[in-house]
């Protein structure tokens, strides 16, 4: 136990400030205010892999590590779409995931935001449309914002998320 406490003490606080970026800081401030106003300070995200190669998931995971610590913005990932304000969808939508994605979308209470994360989700990416792939998420459900990248880095995800929340919400 002493070793664990020692290691924790030596590691210290590693969470980083976001890069000094005037736009981002402004967005960050708006986000805090927006989440406080619209979501009572807490924004719940349900992540849906609709056909990704898993690279986007690895980087979304990284948002929870100590360096990015996305929860400090009041953002957290939830297990059920019924608890979610935001669907964060990755991958080209494989035809085999199409129904599951639609059902997840329908299970998410309105008002809801859909964010397509990664090049595949944004435009089909390397996979495009085929007998097995519907391509972009917007081909299957309404999308409010996209975050490009293959995969988007945790910082790009964070920035994209902050900016996405400034988008007007689609009608439920």
């Amino acid at each position, binding site marked *: 136990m002493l*070793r*664990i406490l020692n*290691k*924790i003490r030596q*590691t210290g606080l*590693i969470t980083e400030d976001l890069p000094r970026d005037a736009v981002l800081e402004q967005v960050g401030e708006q986000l805090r205010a927006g989440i406080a106003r619209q979501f009572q300070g807490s924004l719940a995200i349900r*992540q*849906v*892999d*609709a*056909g*990704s*190669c*898993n*690279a*986007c*998931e*690895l*980087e*979304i*995971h*990284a948002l*929870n*590590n*100590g*360096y990015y610590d996305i929860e400090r913005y009041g953002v957290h*990932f939830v*297990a*059920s*779409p019924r608890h979610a304000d935001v669907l964060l969808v990755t*991958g*080209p939508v*494989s*035809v*085999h*995931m*199409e*129904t*599951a994605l*639609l*059902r*997840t979308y329908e299970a998410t209470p309105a008002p809801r935001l859909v964010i397509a994360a990664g090049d595949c989700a944004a435009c089909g*990416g*390397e*996979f*495009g*449309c*085929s*007998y*097995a*792939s519907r391509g972009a998420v917007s081909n299957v459900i309404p999308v409010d914002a996209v975050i490009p990248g*293959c*995969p988007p*880095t945790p910082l790009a995800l964070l920035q994209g998320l902050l900016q996405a929340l400034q988008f007007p919400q689609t009608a439920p």
Partner: protein
Amino acid sequence: MSHFDWLSELLARYQDERVLVRRGSARELAPAHLLELDAEDWGRAAQVAAQFGCRWAGVWAEQHDDSLLISAALAYQGDHLLLRTAVPLAAPRLPSQTPYYPGADRMERHVQDMHGVVYSDHPDGRRWSRHNRWAADHYPLRRDFAADSAPLPAAPEQDYPFIQTQGAGAYEIPVGPVHAGIIEPGHFRFQAVGEMVLNLEQRLGYVHKGIEKIAEGRDAHGLARLAGRVSGDSTVHHAWAACMAMERAAKITVPPRAQALRAVYAERERIANHLGDIGAICNDVAFAFAFQQFARLRELWLRDNAACGGHRLLMDCIVPGGVARDPDAGQLQRLRAAIDPLRRELATLYPILDDHPSLEDRLATTGVLSAEQAQRLGCLGYVGKASGQDCDLRRDHPYAPYDRLHVPSPLFQTGDVEARLQVRMQEVLDSLELLVVLLDTLPDGAVHVPWQAPAAGSEGLGLVEGWRGEILSHVRFGADGRIARYFPRDPSWFNWPALELLIHGNIVPDFPVCNKSVNGSYSGHDL
């Protein structure tokens, strides 16, 4: 021991069992040895090979005019043997190899769904890769199936005939395809009594996105990009396997500096994934301290990737003919300088993991895969090594630059979650040692040679030891340097079925940690 010194004995057995070998070639698909057989002998050839002790390593088909060419890979003492036969497209019947190799089950059903091969004695004729979005008599990898064919109307995958359990107190838990965490989709059907799992059946294929079909017609660089997205966590290794296959087909030799850099990227990928998994396995038994610590180490590791390879996961760093960029001295120094700090961190953290009673309580004797089960399924990587399967291509049939390196490979016999954790922990240390040697002896010179497309019909095999285990990729070129066929066989094909076995008798709440300890790739399997 020299390579293939066992082959004459296997051929003698084939002769005894009247398995007719029509033709053999040591060169065409080197380093594998090719044997052409009659279709009617396909099952018996597997039976003899299984008795001989060969590991089964994959099957795929290709359409050649009016016939389907079927290739099955076997491995023995690190050497690969390729069995090949042909069946007419009009009557594509073939004996199954699954009765002798249970690990062949799903891949043969993939061939059945994608090419329309009819297995005469497959023990499980259910569809696998097809989820009712294309017609049962349509086969996406045949020439007459257009890549952009419209799928059938969206419908839930609900009429798949799962194995049923009946009896007092028995109940089912359907899980997925959308899981509760930030993970890939797939369906797990549990049958349980109380908390104990009686049976688990996996239904995968949800992220099938037609990788094999959309590979057709690409050029070599386009295939390398696609291969780098077969399974995002294995982007380096899948790209390497595909490039190795293409380079062998084109008879291109990669410069020594590029070979060494490929291995640097590959070992960095192995370490990054193992660091993530070690933390995640601990997290699944609520040891959050380790989760946070290893997530921190992984993040630092990925930042070095970005600084030196230009990408946190090192995507698109391996290209046909070599590597995309030559890192400068400063970048290489950064990679070298990262090794000792990580070793020091692990020297603090590993003893904490080793001594933590609650961790041992949850991981030891949990999710046991016996050596016999692992051997029968042909389990690879840390799943195999935790269950007595001493198999590592880097050591057994080393490809450059591993032919000049000493590659240790951990081996455990207990086959539980703890053993799969221990393999990863040891492999991180071993890979760090390899990185030291690779970086300290990095050859000078070019990092790529110009790509030259081979003649139509040329083919090659890529074989690399990915972080999950052996990856086998087959590439055949068509006209104008375009890809005619690409099949990447991820090790997950053999490790996923192991999860169905090792969960028996465990409690449902231990499924996440058992699953994480196997960590199969959905995307790499579903293609």
